[in-house]
């Protein structure tokens, strides 16, 4: 009997100690203010706090390069995250540890042609760029690396959800001026444009207008004004009759346009009935599409650093890395 009582007492003490330990352990770690679901990131003593999630897990990836032997890459503004994604993937680093600078499209072509860089990630060469290469005796080898689309958007309250390609052209030549002409309400179309040196303006001219003359937008409709087109189109009071445009990648990454607050007010217009999303862009059903390209000097020999990198970018790891940062893979 004594033995059992002894065991009982011992058992009680042990359980009490365990519970006490759990209590203190939990409450000590909850110093500071906790609110449900939003804990402030503690302990991270860095100058720049990193709010974003990791783009992809840094696991047991094989590193192909170190910082010293990565080929020299340049490109357009819109391919900066792409170039970073590739470099991080192939060095087995985090994207946040890679910082690059692109010269923008035209200087990138210049540097490729002069031999200053090994490989560029850019939009399709223009007439001028082809001529420049020809003059230098360089043949450009151009290969698409990711898909891109040119998108139009309007306010969610606008009943018009899709336009034909021709209708879009006519809106911007000024032939169509009212939403009722395209199946909407009787409201004048406020067709904002961008300033001449912007990527999106170049895009609409090349991919949509194709030689047709864009109307002169009234001064207040040219965006050099204070507000981004997205904020104007999404405006509760005044956005209903507005239409804007951009590259799919810009719109989706800058504004997370596929969800959250902006999506509540912005609608990506379908073109010829097809709405733009990763699938329709990849499979080609969305009609206003383009690509970003890897461009190298065609004279690069087999197995050269540029060619090897190019193959890696087009390969599975490269494409996965590109998609992880929001591009539409091939």
């Amino acid at each position, binding site marked *: *009997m004594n033995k*059992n*009582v002894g*065991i*009982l007492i011992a*058992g009680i003490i042990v*359980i009490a100690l365990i*519970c*006490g330990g759990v*209590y203190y352990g*939990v*409450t000590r770690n*909850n110093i*500071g*203010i*906790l*609110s*449900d679901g*939003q804990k*402030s*990131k503690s302990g*991270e*003593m860095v*100058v*720049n*706090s*990193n*709010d*974003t999630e990791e783009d992809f897990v840094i696991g047991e990836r094989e590193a192909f390069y170190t910082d010293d032997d990565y080929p020299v890459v340049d490109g357009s*503004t*819109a391919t*900066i995250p792409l170039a970073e994604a590739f470099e991080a993937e192939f060095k087995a680093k985090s*994207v*946040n540890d890679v*910082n*690059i*600078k*692109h010269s*923008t499209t035209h200087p990138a072509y210049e540097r490729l042609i002069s031999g200053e860089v090994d490989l560029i990630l850019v939009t399709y060469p223009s007439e001028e760029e082809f001529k420049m290469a020809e003059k230098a005796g360089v043949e450009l080898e151009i290969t698409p690396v990711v898909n891109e689309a040119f998108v139009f958007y309007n306010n969610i309250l606008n009943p018009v959800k899709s336009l034909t390609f021709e209708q879009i052209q006519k809106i911007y030549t000024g032939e169509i001026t009212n939403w009722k002409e395209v199946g909407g309400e009787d409201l004048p179309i406020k067709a904002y444009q*961008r*300033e*001449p*040196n*912007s990527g999106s*303006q170049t895009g609409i001219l090349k991919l949509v207008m194709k030689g047709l003359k864009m109307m002169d937008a009234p001064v207040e409709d040219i*965006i*050099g*004004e*204070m*507000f*981004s087109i*997205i*904020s104007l189109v999404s405006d509760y009071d005044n956005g209903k009759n507005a239409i804007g445009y951009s590259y799919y990648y*810009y719109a989706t*990454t*800058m504004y*997370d346009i596929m969800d*959250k*607050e*902006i999506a509540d007010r912005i609608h990506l217009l379908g073109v010829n009935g097809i709405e733009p999303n990763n699938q329709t862009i990849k499979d080609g059903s969305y009609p206003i599409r383009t690509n970003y390209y890897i461009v190298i000097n065609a004279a690069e020999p087999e197995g050269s650093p540029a060619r090897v990198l190019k193959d890696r970018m087009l390969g599975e790891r490269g494409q996965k890395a590109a998609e992880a940062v929001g591009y539409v893979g091939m």
Partner: protein
Amino acid sequence: MSKKVLIIVLSIFAVLAIMVTGVLIGFSINSRKGSKLESSGDVIVEQTNDIVTNLREIDYTLGIKNLNDKFTMNNIEIEDLKYTEGKGFKRYSWSTTYDYPIEISYFRISGLKNKQIQDKVNERIKELAFNMLPSGEAEKKTVSVNVHGNFANVLSVSASYSMDVQRKPGDPNFNYDSDYNRDYYYGSCYITFDLTTGNEITLADVFVDNYNFKQLIANKLYNSLAWDYEYQEWIYDPETDTYNPPEDQGRGGLEDRQFILMHQFDKGNYSFAVTQSSVDVSIQNAGTDPFNPYDSSRNVYIGMEAYKDKIAIFNRFQTEQSIYEKGDSDDKRYYFISEYTLKDMHEFDDNLFIYYNEEASYREGYEMQYKEWLNGRISAEKTYAKQNPSKQLVEFIYQTYDYVGTYPDNAEGYMINIVRAELPKNVFDKASGMDKLINTIRHPVDTEEEDYWYYSDDTIVESFIKYLQDIDTSGSLDIVKWKNGAYYKYDRSYGSYREYLDYDTFFVLPSDEKVLTEEDLKGLDIEALNTAYNEIFARYGHDFTNKSLRSYFLGQLWYAMESGKKVSVEELSDVEKVNLDLISKTIAFLRSGGVTET
């Protein structure tokens, strides 16, 4: 006791113990003041009597009830620290101070109950200061770490560095045609602490939960880029006789630049600080050449007032017990509308009204200094009113600030703005004028976009001025604006304000311009004459000991006091000496019971 009983008893005890432990843990967590702040709905309405008691004889019902909540300033002490390396040198021959090759200015705080947390914060501040020091050879490197915001148990710190490098012959940028061969590098960043834990907070802590602040920042960033674009110099093309947009210098369009910077934001290459009026976000473009600062970083300012239902920082780190040794500060401020709270007004007979809003967010020392200045203005204008009985003087004084530091003498962080209008008498109706002012202040901006307080500032003033212009049927309205040291007078023919450098503000007498006669002194009482007497010295910057004179002159816009300076009669001009004599004789005459005609 049988084994069976033993097991049953132990099991029951174990279950009870687990339940009790769970309940205790639950209570422990809930007792901390972590409130889940949803957007809107959590605004605490507190009525205060402060405003009501300071108003006199004016219709109080117009927007007086102040429904804004208050927060407390942090009750900590700041001690400035400086580290130097190398031998002091005078950068320029006329310098009065020494520069050092390396100078790191930072600070440490004291006054927190929890010394571990205090040490942690101070360590981090010091680490930041020393880490900011750029590497490389340079003539001079400076790091400066300062308090940027200090309220509601949050401490924001700004840090910046600059580096001067002398170029050498052979350097590609060396300019052989010039003596000027220096490269400047600079950069900055912020960190923000939660003083209840000593940890650095994230941007998400500033806003209410689940708010998509990235959208807000993307739009504000665009605003900022577009603003610059708008005001850059456009290039004239004589062939087409038009102006063309500024060269983009290879940076691409606005959307492209916005994209580059938002990409950096996504990567976490940004820092932020909070002040009582704004959230300041600095996005670093990590890929750019630090020598070319354009777009190497970009600041975005989010005005707290416009987004008040999205801002959670004033409540986020509240505690039930004070975390300060001296207890919570008495220094309570209003949320958001503090700079426009109409807290005090003065009225003098029917000639003169001065409305001013007491900027609620400044420390005691400055508050006293400001009151002294204000009293000085009031007495100056009283004298004016006596001399100009046919006019009505309306003066609106308001104070705006850049950001609030915690140093009592950080007066240069503030700007005094004055709108001074001389109207024909009886034109200004105080009730409707007051109405106009309050309504403009309470609704300074219409759209969500115009939230940076700079815009609000001018909107209020311009509304008030427009109102004055509307009521002035005589066309003789004289409006002068004084902002931060310069006069702007409304030029009717020009249709707007022009800097008015020769504006002779109010002097009792033009005692430096001409020899005065008894005629000129008619109508002035002893007080005014006494002022006129001292005014002669004041023009030279005399530092007055007498409190009321001191306060009067400090209220004068033209007065440029030189600390400690005592002006002697010998320094005055001949004209001034003669006038001095006349004035003192007149005072003596009046004191002995004499009377001058009025």
